[in-house]
């Protein structure tokens, strides 16, 4: 099962002939992802990593049934590429690109909502349903099938946690990177809803950060709607308030989004909170569900 993507998901790669596009297409193919087409304007008819290349998503979608797309497109052109993918009918779009202007992101989200498309990212490492389909840039070796579903705002931090889990013998069902920007497509609640429904997921890990209010909103939601155990780790306990911490989401605004506020909300919702990232496997073990 897994959520959002699985072994049937057919993927088109936008920007497949670029350096990043090529490299990660190769990695995704190695992982087993069904990449059916690539897009690169002006390079239609070529092949990249054994995948046929088209001039547009429309052209690719005419020749192949495609379910999802992934963007390896520079920030200045990402909005156009995303709108094209949505207009051409893709229902899931993973936007790896970072540094996309906020107003562009907002326009992408508005168009996606109108057309019923799901956007993962931008500024995400992607999404992987372990052993089935990887759409993103995460290292292949850590993502082995198992009962743990993960949803995270931050990329490398997720690898850290997945690495620790892997070391402790726990595999993952689906790992979703929401993306580090202020405006992203999926939020915690969207993903939690899916995990709750997914028979392959027995425990959910939420990897948050200081700043914003999405962890607090997730806590509210968990209290009412999630029956599966949830473990959370929130980064930024010792980050100085108000300083710029790499991405906008990490700016603490107007006293909201503090570490303590998030922890309190999560604990009140019955979530198991890890103080440090490598505590997560122990907490899962103590749940005594496996």
């Amino acid at each position, binding site marked *: 099962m897994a959520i959002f993507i699985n072994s049937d998901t057919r993927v088109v790669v936008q920007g497949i002939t670029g350096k990043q596009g090529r490299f990660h297409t190769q990695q995704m193919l190695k992982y087993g992802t069904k990449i059916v087409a690539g897009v690169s304007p002006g390079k239609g008819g070529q092949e990249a990593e054994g995948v046929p290349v088209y001039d547009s998503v429309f052209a690719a979608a005419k020749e192949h049934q495609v379910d999802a797309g992934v963007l390896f497109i520079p920030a*200045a052109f990402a909005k156009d590429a995303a709108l094209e993918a949505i207009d051409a009918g893709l229902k899931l779009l993973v936007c790896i690109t*970072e*540094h*996309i*202007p*906020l*107003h*562009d*992101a*907002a*326009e992408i*989200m*508005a*168009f996606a*909502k*109108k057309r019923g498309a799901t956007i993962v990212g931008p500024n995400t*490492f992607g999404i992987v349903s372990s052993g089935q389909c990887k759409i993103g*840039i*995460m*290292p292949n070796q850590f993502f082995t099938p198992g009962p743990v579903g993960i949803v*995270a*705002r*931050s*990329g*490398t*931090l997720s*690898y*850290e946690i997945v*690495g620790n889990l892997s070391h402790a013998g726990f595999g993952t069902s689906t790992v979703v990177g929401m993306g*580090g920007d*202020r*405006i*992203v*497509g999926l*939020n915690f609640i969207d993903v939690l809803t899916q995990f709750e429904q997914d028979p392959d997921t027995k425990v959910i890990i939420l*990897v948050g*950060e*200081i700043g*914003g*209010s*999405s962890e607090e*909103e997730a806590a509210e939601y968990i209290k009412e709607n999630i029956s599966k155990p949830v473990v959370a*780790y929130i*980064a*930024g*306990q*010792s*980050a*100085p308030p108000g*300083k*710029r*911490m*790499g*991405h*906008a*989401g990490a700016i603490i605004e107007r006293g909201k989004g503090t570490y303590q506020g998030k922890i309190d909300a999560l604990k009140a919702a019955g979530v198991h909170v890890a*103080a*440090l*990232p*490598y505590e997560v496997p122990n907490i899962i073990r103590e749940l005594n569900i496996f």
Partner: protein
Amino acid sequence: MKLFEYMGKDLFRQYGIPTPKGKVIRTAGEAGPVTEELGNVVIKTQILSGKRGKAGGIKFADQSSDAIEAANSILGKEFNGLVAEEVLIEEKLPIEKELYLAIVMEGSLRGPILLASQYGGMDIEEVPEANIIKMPIDIHVGIQPYLCREIARKLELTGDIQQQFSKMLPNLYRLFKERDCEMVEINPLVIADGKLVAADAKITIDDEALYRQPDLPKVEERNEAEQKAHAIGLSFVQLDGDIAIMANGAGITMATLDVINHYGGSPANFLDAGGGANVEQTAAALELLLSTNPKAIFINIFGGITRCDDVARAFLQVNSQKSIDVPVVIRLVGTNQEAGVKLLQEQGIVAYEHMQEAAMKTVALAKGMVE
């Protein structure tokens, strides 16, 4: 990028939003002629921070000598930790009412939201939620006449002031959109002499969109080290501890700070080398850390796009060029891990696999507890 008040007001004027008459000055003497021209004036410290008034950064004068004295007492002085290099002198308005108005890009809405209140002014942050009007704006529909009417109604504006508001608001939104603003804020938006006037201007431009806003003034908030890091594509914030930290990704960098703190260490900085930093960038980052004279350096890499062998190569390169006389702890996992670890081993350097272990070691080294 935050804009100074006077820059924001320049933009307001470009977009047809009424502002008080005024002039920005850089030396106290200039205050004289401006005051002579404007009469009663308000003298406003130009710093990139709120709460200027409470910090004594806003003064009044009705003659040149007082204005010069006031400017003198501001220029070059520190307010809320920031040095004032400019002062804005403006006509003093006969304020009847202070409103609050802002448009902000809101994450949970995935688009713009309009905020407004009848209770604008210095204490807007203390105004209860119930008195703040919040209206999401559909980015595809923008600000239509009905939205102007609705906000005006909720602000209890009537007659001519309502008309002025309905004319001004679409202009403010146009500025917000065309100039890639993260936020535009007018606090207070005042009613004075039957006119609606933007008495303050707080504008933040989306950093990611600066490339397509070439005619905006440049404002630099970063200190020298932060600028250097930014120039090579890294995100760096200076802190007050003694353990220099470098990791790849904002989340893991924060987590690294947390772990160091947990073991009693004190981070000297936040350095996110980001996804996919190459040998050159990594080496430059390392040199930056060395230049801050820390007691220890902790390099914590979980390679995704970042390749462990590149990090190892960068370290070895710097190490061979200058003598690194502080202890460096390297944790290296992920993409090309084996190659990276091997490169370091060949030079007799141990790479850690676990963050916990590596962090504990770093703290101990910084405290001089181990060699």
